[in-house]
């Protein structure tokens, strides 16, 4: 899609009606042309998983929404995550209608959008993270944000800002042709979801397109902390392990260090944890120092759960 043309077509259709979020035309224009100059050092997913393997540990990947509760605070939170021991980052771009997410992530999306987050600013956010870390960064988005910018342009921007991989929550293999092509063209990983209900046949289809790691959904449901981990998760990880050499990272519903240890013991390479961290953000909006300290502390606890002495 030609985004210039799109930009013209969309002008004036979305003035100030209630609930409409910041219009990023300006951000978009401002961000043009300044991204190629960055010389970014980016560690690949495979190098990161190799590094963990050599230490006989699992990887811990925290998830937050870019710009929650605002751009600056969010950036500081990412800094705490990195210092707290994150092996990679999963960064969400907020969407108005996140059907795969529970109330925790949706609230984060709303806080971020209300604070003025846009897709262009999202890439700016990634570039800022790249100033202090080279660990892999995965984007978690809904496909409309990609489509609206233009698939090629979105992936190009992702590459230029230092993203490693992209997972679109509502993009199954059936619809992923353009995205996979754009990912390959830009040397990015296209990451897919697989769940308990995913048949072996379908799993094969997903694995053909998937690179970086396979995102294994641990519960039937939307994102959000759960108190218990189903026993079926262990079986599912085993089944997927038997089908692919791709690294497996388990996410959705993981809320305790014990869950992390459990999924890694079951054969997963890592765990993705979002809602519990976002809960910490939501509960400490008033005090940044406490917020940062708590985020770093949670991150440490969860990273510890992946260590050799825990998983053996």
């Amino acid at each position, binding site marked *: 899609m030609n985004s210039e043309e799109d930009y013209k077509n969309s002008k004036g*259709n*979305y003035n100030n009606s209630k609930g409409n979020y910041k219009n990023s035309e300006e951000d978009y224009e401002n961000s043009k042309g300044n991204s190629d100059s960055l010389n970014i050092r980016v560690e690949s997913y495979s190098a990161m998983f190799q590094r963990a393997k050599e230490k006989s540990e699992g990887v811990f990947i925290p998830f937050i929404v870019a710009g929650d509760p605002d751009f600056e605070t969010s950036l500081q939170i990412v800094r705490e995550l990195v210092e707290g021991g994150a092996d990679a980052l999963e960064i969400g771009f907020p969407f108005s209608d996140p059907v795969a997410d529970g109330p925790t992530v949706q609230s984060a999306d709303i806080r971020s959008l209300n604070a003025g987050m846009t897709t262009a600013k999202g890439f700016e956010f990634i570039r800022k993270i790249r100033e202090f870390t080279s660990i892999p960064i995965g984007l978690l988005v809904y496909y409309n944000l990609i489509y*609206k910018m233009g698939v090629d342009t979105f992936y190009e921007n992702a590459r230029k800002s230092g993203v490693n991989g992209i997972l679109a929550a*509502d993009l199954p293999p*059936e619809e992923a042709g353009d995205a996979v092509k754009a990912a390959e063209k830009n040397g990015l990983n296209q990451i897919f979801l697989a*769940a308990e*209900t995913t048949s072996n046949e379908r799993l094969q289809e997903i694995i053909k397109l998937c690179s970086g790691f396979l995102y294994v959904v641990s519960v039937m449901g939307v994102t959000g902390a759960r108190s218990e981990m189903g026993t079926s998760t262990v079986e599912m990880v085993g089944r997927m392990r038997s089908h692919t050499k791709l690294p497996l990272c388990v996410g959705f519903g993981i809320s305790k260090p014990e869950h992390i240890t459990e999924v890694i013991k079951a054969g997963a390479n890592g765990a993705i944890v979002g809602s519990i961290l976002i809960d910490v953000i939501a509960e400490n909006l008033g005090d940044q120092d406490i917020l940062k300290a708590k985020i770093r502390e949670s991150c440490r606890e969860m990273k510890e759960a992946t260590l050799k002495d825990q998983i053996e």
Partner: protein
Amino acid sequence: MIMSGKFGRYGGVFVPELLIPALEELEGAFLKYREDKKFNKELEYYLQEFAGRPTSLYFARNLSEKWGCKVYLKREDMLHTGAHKINNTLGQGLLAKYMGKERLIAETGAGQHGIATAVVGALLNIPTEVYMGSEDVERQKLNVFRMELSGARVLSVDSGSRTLKDAINQAFRDWITNVDTTHYLIGSTMGPHPYPTMVKHFQKVIGRETKEQILQKEGELPDAVIACVGGGSNSIGIFSEFIDDEEVELIGVEGGGEGIGSGRTGATLSVGTEGILHGSFSYVLQNFDGQITEAHSVSAGLDYPGVGPEHSYLKITGRAEYVAITNKEALRGFELLSKYEGIIPALESSHAVAYAEKYAKMKENRGRSIVVNLSGRGDKDMFLVAREMGEKI
């Protein structure tokens, strides 16, 4: 998936992986049972005996004289629960029963689809839960009570815009969590495949009857078929039978709200752009980044920032024309039909009536025959219309 679920470039299955097996199961069941004699016989029985089909194609004599055209009304407003919605809820409800599902969920804006689902839940003995935005729950207390009387549980949705769009998001989340036991009974020709195709299948009965009836009364096809478009099920239902008859003009009427340039509109096809919402690629109301914006229309049924993918296809191929009618014009349509024909239309259908008047008054259309799909009755809108007219009731 057996079919791609595409209408040209539009449609598809843009959903989280967790839902794919459920959509595959649903597609399989739909393809199987739509050919099944027993299923069709049972559906036929309920459509006749429970819902009140066939509905008449009524010649509106007074309006015809006034407008200088032959105006026919397809009386879906005469159906049980007051609108065409029951055609689809009976079809999908029965399908869910054949599939062995133990629970129905649905989304509703004003409550019409919720009620049509609730009564089918009662009829077929399937526990039913209906998601409704908390703002709509407040605005439509009467319909909430109706659903509850039919044994459904109404779940108020407090996230996002607290209206239809977020009720749909919440219903999807529920379905993702309970796919094994639950059928999500979507109320319009929207959503991921197979919904647009399946809902069309169950609404086609409107067009089938209309064609037969007009041929009987006029001996020829109508010059134009006019229907309102929200998600787009009543319009697809009546259009479908005429799509191959190229001499018949198909006109979809969107909720223009305060006007298509006002920023407060539900006219997705008129002012929207292509995008992905609720599982399919179609036209949507969105901002520069692709964040979905809120729709606005006086009629809750047209107050949705997306539209069924087949309508996008019919628009882009030029087979159907889409126009917008403002809130004000729709209220005039409402009053006209009430006053001259003694038929009180739903505010949604009033949009089609209002455009029919415009169409009839164009010089080149003099004497032509028009079918207006009167998709629902206006009982539900009494308080709102009275308020708009400055009456206290």
